[in-house]
């Protein structure tokens, strides 16, 4: 057996030592990579978010709508109706107005008025409701939309006031007041 010859068992021991050192290096590198994760920790502090919401309604009509009675012939035998205009209000979701009335500038709160010497009566129907959508973390949501249909009627047999064979079309402004 030569001097530099190494027995098989010895060879095996030398290889085992190298292999162990390699594994140790890998383990150390892995540990170094995960050091921050291993050391992370959390703590919390609660607080309250608070708001007071004042419910509102607001008219959303753009431009002026017209309740038109068309042409009324003096002393006509039948009542004269009008078209229906839809007046919309957007309100806080779930919030309902308590009452509606007409202005008292050009008539009565109940809806009566006089135009060109002709008496008329306005009526506001029960509102239709389109429910809004709730707010989310991604959207502010939408309002409830309440729409009031307003129409009018003139009694038959009225003389009117007109110095010519025809007067008009005459107009005046009325207002629907929603109280909430």
């Amino acid at each position: 057996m030569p001097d530099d010859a190494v027995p098989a068992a010895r060879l095996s021991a030398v290889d085992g030592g190298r292999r162990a050192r390699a594994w140790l290096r890998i383990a150390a590198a892995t540990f170094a990579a995960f050091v921050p994760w291993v050391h992370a920790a959390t703590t919390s502090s609660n607080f309250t978010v608070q708001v007071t919401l004042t419910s509102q309604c607001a008219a959303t009509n753009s431009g002026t709508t017209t309740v038109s009675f068309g042409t009324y012939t003096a002393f006509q035998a039948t009542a004269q109706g009008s078209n229906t205009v839809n007046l919309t209000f957007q309100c806080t979701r779930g919030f309902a107005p308590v009452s509606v009335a007409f202005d008292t500038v050009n008539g009565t709160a109940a809806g009566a008025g006089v135009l060109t010497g002709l008496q008329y009566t306005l009526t506001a129907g029960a509102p239709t409701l389109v429910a809004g959508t709730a707010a989310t973390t991604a959207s502010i949501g939408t309002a409830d939309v309440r729409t009031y249909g307003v129409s009018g009627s003139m009694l038959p047999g009225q003389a009117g006031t007109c110095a010519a064979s025809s007067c008009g079309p005459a107009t005046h402004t009325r207002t629907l007041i929603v109280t909430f």
Partner: protein
Amino acid sequence: MKAARSALLAAISIAAVLGPGAAIAAQAVSSFKVQVQLSNQVSPGSDFCRIRDMPGAFGAIVTVVCSTGVVVQIDAPSAQSSSLPIHGGAYRFLPPVSWAGLMSDDMTAGLGTVTSWRVIKLADRDLLEMTVRW
């Protein structure tokens, strides 16, 4: 100073009565226009009228209702009138004429068929025009 303190106390009292949850009524308004055209012209061919509630007594007021819905009120004729606004024919007039050919305005009238009459004064004569309807 006392006045200011009193005002402050009053304000605090009101706020306490109302409470933090008290809501003051608010309003939202929406304006619109009301429009109409008035016509005084009756459509042609609709002048057929009927007498309603004929009282049958002289001096009474009768009501004439036309197909257009127009209500014409007929008052008792004036004896002084030379052209009477009669609609429908309800009166009979008896204008007395003297032997000298002079017509007196002291006339009598009653139910009849004469609907209107008038005296037309010309330069050399007078004409009595009568419109009769039956």
